[in-house]
């Protein structure tokens, strides 16, 4: 049955929709503000044990012995597992690139600080922690490689010996005649950039309760997972189980941002429950474990970027060389962070040709994980600095530099050099909006006055793209298989007309249950109180991926509206049968089934539903009497990646312009944000309040990236940032109030025209702040090319520049 999903609110069978497009209160919140939401650590199962994991204190060493005998004697200890158990009962996990994985506990050697070596299940966490302290491990130190350039040298120690190299992937992608573009350019600019490791840091760490059923040979996992389906399939592969023997029950998460991780810890916990004869075992990652051994770290990048530019400011070519330090394995799929930039390689610009020289290297550090934005944020940070460098040299205002190169609004859908297609946009309108909202000329005057007083004040004007609605094909070049990411929903009406929406993902922070409720309430013209959203486990939910890749808002809208449409068609057929009319003569209008043009012939929805449930003998013979329908939405028109990695991958392209003014204190290197202004276009806003929340939250994370957050390792691969005393998250004192404006160009490709917007300003904020800093530093003759632009980095930079000028 082909299903027409409403393209606009006008297509709803409701003459006065009340919810979609409005900033309604969230259905999630009453539970959250009263502390009633069932986060995983709240769950207690009968007979449940608690796990603690012993982790490697060194980055690279052979394990020559493990003695668990003392730990075994401790009262309250039920099971201890080591690498031997991992070898016995599990396989290395699926990875990207493929076959760069190791067992969930070190079997022969440890490869990074924080790698699990042994684990204990005991009556409570206190006893489990006592027990791991009684385990004695003998390490024979091996030479450490913690620098990706050194890791590529011949003779470097190998992280995974069997691979024979530390180079996980090395490829050059040429999209068009790049050499020619650089040969024909009037000017060529080249700069190096360094983006240091940082990561998601949801406030809740990962947690899981694993229960092995020794009779059925099956595993049940309750966990704070982002994509239960994906997680379950991965675990089935790890334990060599059929996929229908791994059941995942998702729990609400206290944030995720891609970096919830937890696969290793889950696999260790699963070994423990098996060893404990099937007693349920709970493992709650503590913060130190998260920071040193969890899904915490992403994007450890060394860039060299060149731009080919004409004298009139047109950019004619882009050449990006990236070396990314992936850490010890590919188990957390961190490599997809390096290829997602293909979805928006040239940003909002018409740059016709581009090259990507990509190298991913293994070192003795924690494996990289995804993080909000999944890789483009550092790419845009570098690209936008290059735009500024070119503009400055050409003496073009940075805003005008962007304008000259924007994809014009009548060029959409627009295919970029790296192969993806952008759906829609009006980039000049967004830029104009941002310049007006920020009162850009006035900002420049303020800057001039400040400079005259000897203050270092700078302005960044930056634009970036947020690719929305991810697809697996975007990651084909790092070995990820497949096209299409399904999202399903079931809409079901009970005999009293109350509606349930059944979905396959657990609560996250973005308000998706509210969105589903808004859609169904407006579609069937009922109130919020008439609707319940029911998250289901992987054995009972419709096919689902859940949140990720700025996808769920769009995908869920498609799924829910598809289900509503199917259900409407069913109700119409039933009502038509009861009215003894053709289905074409019957319609759903404002929640009632009415005969078109025959006043008075109508039934309420509960009446029709009641008939379906109680009198299936009256129904057309081929109709399924359940008053419910399921629809599974996938993005249409996605293509297989060609040999250069080009594909129609991400379905939508949201765009933003940020205008930021900062002051750098040359004495301390401290950066203060004086003004922050953002205008963005993410298509139709289905719930403007939650979209605004995504923008504000991602600006804060972008500020953290630009100024504060960094995982520091020493040259022995020892991590120096293992608490929030050292890894600095933005607080309320670092995040300024923002001025916000919007432009709406609905996506022609999505239900209701919404675009992916969950990753949001993370794409733009780091670039904007670095641009503003560099603008501030111009009079000093310094240029910041490393983030975070921490006070010590800027101070050193400024001092170096001063020494240079003094020496001249």
């Amino acid at each position, binding site marked *: 049955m082909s299903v027409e999903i409403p393209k606009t609110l006008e297509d709803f069978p409701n003459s006065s929709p009340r919810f979609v497009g409005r*900033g309604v*209160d*969230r259905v*999630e*919140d*009453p*539970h*959250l*503000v*009263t*502390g*009633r*939401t069932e*986060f995983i*650590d*709240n769950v207690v199962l009968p007979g449940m044990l608690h796990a603690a994991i012993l982790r490697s204190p060194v980055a690279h060493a052979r394990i020559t012995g493990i003695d668990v005998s003392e730990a075994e004697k*401790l*009262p309250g200890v039920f099971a201890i597992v080591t690498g031997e158990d991992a070898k016995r009962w599990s396989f290395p996990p699926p990875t990207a690139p493929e076959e760069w994985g190791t067992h969930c506990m070190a079997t022969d050697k440890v490869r990074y600080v924080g790698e699990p070596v042994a684990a204990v299940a005991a009556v*409570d966490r*206190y*006893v489990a922690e*006592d027990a791991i302290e009684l385990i004695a491990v003998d390490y024979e130190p091996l030479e450490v490689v913690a620098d990706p350039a050194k890791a590529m040298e011949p003779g470097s120690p190998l992280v995974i010996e069997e691979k024979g190299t530390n180079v996980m992937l090395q490829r050059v992608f040429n999209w068009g005649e790049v050499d020619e573009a650089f040969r024909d350019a009037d000017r060529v600019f080249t700069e190096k950039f360094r983006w240091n490791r940082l990561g998601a*840091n*949801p*406030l*809740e*760490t990962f947690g899981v309760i694993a229960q092995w059923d020794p009779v059925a040979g099956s595993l049940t996992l309750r966990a704070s997972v982002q994509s239960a389906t994906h997680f379950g399939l991965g675990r089935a592969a790890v334990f060599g189980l059929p996929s229908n023997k791994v059941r995942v029950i998702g729990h*609400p*998460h*206290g*944030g*995720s*941002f891609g970096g919830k991780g937890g696969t290793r810890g889950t696999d260790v916990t699963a070994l423990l429950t098996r060893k404990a004869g099937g007693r349920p075992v709970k493992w709650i990652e*503590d*913060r*130190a474990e998260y920071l040193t051994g969890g899904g915490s770290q992403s994007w450890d990048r060394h860039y060299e970027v060149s731009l080919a530019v004409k004298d009139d400011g047109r950019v004619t070519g882009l050449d990006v060389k990236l070396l990314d330090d992936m850490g010890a394995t590919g188990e957390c799929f961190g490599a997809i962070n390096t290829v997602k930039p293909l979805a928006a390689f040239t940003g909002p610009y018409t740059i016709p040709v581009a090259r990507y020289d990509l190298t991913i290297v293994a070192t003795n550090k924690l494996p990289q994980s995804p993080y909000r934005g999944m890789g483009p944020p550092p790419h845009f940070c570098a690209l936008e600095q290059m735009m500024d460098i070119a503009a400055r040299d050409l003496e073009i205002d940075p805003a005008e530099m962007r304008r000259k190169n924007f994809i014009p609004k009548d060029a959409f859908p627009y295919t970029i050099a790296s192969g993806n297609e952008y759906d829609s946009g009006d980039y000049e309108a967004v830029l104009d909006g941002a310049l007006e909202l920020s009162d850009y000329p006035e900002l420049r005057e303020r800057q001039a006055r400040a400079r005259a007083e000897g203050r270092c004040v700078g302005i960044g004007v930056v634009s970036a793209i947020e690719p929305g609605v991810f697809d697996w094909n975007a990651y084909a070049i790092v070995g990820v298989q497949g096209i299409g990411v399904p999202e399903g929903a079931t809409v079901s009406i009970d005999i009293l007309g109350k509606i349930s929406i059944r979905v396959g993902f657990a609560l*996250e*922070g*973005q*308000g998706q249950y509210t969105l589903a409720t808004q859609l169904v309430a407006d579609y069937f013209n009922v109130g919020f109180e008439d609707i319940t959203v029911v998250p289901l486990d992987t054995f009972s939910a419709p096919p689902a991926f859940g949140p990720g890749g700025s996808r769920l808002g769009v995908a869920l809208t498609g799924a829910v509206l598809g289900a509503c449409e199917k259900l409407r068609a069913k109700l119409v057929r039933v009502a038509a049968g009861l009215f003894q009319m053709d289905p074409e003569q019957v319609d759903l209008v404002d929640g009632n089934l009415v005969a078109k043009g025959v006043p008075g012939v109508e039934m309420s929805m509960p009446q029709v539903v009641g008939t379906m449930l109680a009198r299936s003998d009256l129904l057309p013979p081929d109709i399924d009497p359940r008053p419910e329908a399921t629809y599974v939405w996938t993005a249409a028109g996605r293509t297989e990646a060609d040999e250069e990695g080009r594909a129609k991958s991400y379905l939508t392209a949201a765009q933003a312009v940020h205008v930021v003014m900062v002051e750098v204190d040359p004495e301390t290197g401290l950066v203060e944000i004086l003004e922050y202004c953002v205008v963005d276009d993410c298509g139709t806003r289905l719930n403007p*309040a*939650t979209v*605004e*929340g995504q923008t*504000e*939250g*991602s*600006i*804060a*994370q972008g500020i953290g990236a630009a100024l504060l957050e960094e995982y520091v390792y020493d040259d022995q691969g020892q991590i120096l940032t293992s*608490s*929030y*005393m050292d890894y600095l*998250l933005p*607080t*309320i*004192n670092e*995040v300024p*109030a*923002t001025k916000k404006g919007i432009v709406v160009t609905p996506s022609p490709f999505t239900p209701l025209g919404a675009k992916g917007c969950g990753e949001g300003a993370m794409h733009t904020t780091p670039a904007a702040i670095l641009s503003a800093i560099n603008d501030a530093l111009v009079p000093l003759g310094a240029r910041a090319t490393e983030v975070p632009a921490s006070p010590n980095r800027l101070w050193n930079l400024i001092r170096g520049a001063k020494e240079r000028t003094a020496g001249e």
Partner: protein
Amino acid sequence: MTTQKKAISLSVNGISYEASIEPRMTLADLLRGELVLTGTHVGCEHGVCGACTVLLDGRAVRACLMLAVQADGASLTTVEGLETDGELHPIQQAFIEEHGLQCGFCTPGFLLTVHELLENSPDPSDDEVRDALGGQICRCTGYQAILRSVRLAATRLRDAQAAASSQGS
């Protein structure tokens, strides 16, 4: 390593409890594990994030840093104690209306910290609010909506106070 248990008694949200616990047990674990008041969340276990904030004799404290035995004889308020007979506290209501939460994991800690602030300073300036909330981490919201929530809550509470006193006079 397990040591002799110690008996303590305390009151939480107006209910008296007695417990026999190991001296090393944290207050957070007592509340969450023994008393099943799981609304108090643990984000860092080292005193930085503020998710575990509860009120001890009216003062905001970090339940991850305190030992449960230190709360012997004290009177505590946790997030579960904010509502009255199913009616949300105005601070809770304000957070909902101003979208002062996303994942909600930090929220109990914020609510109690704001509660303490507004008890002491019913009409705080933004700087005062920033000062009071400087030790609470929220990874989701970027804090702007939290600021708006606090402003709304302060107004509502002042209005309620004014209404109550004008009725009383």
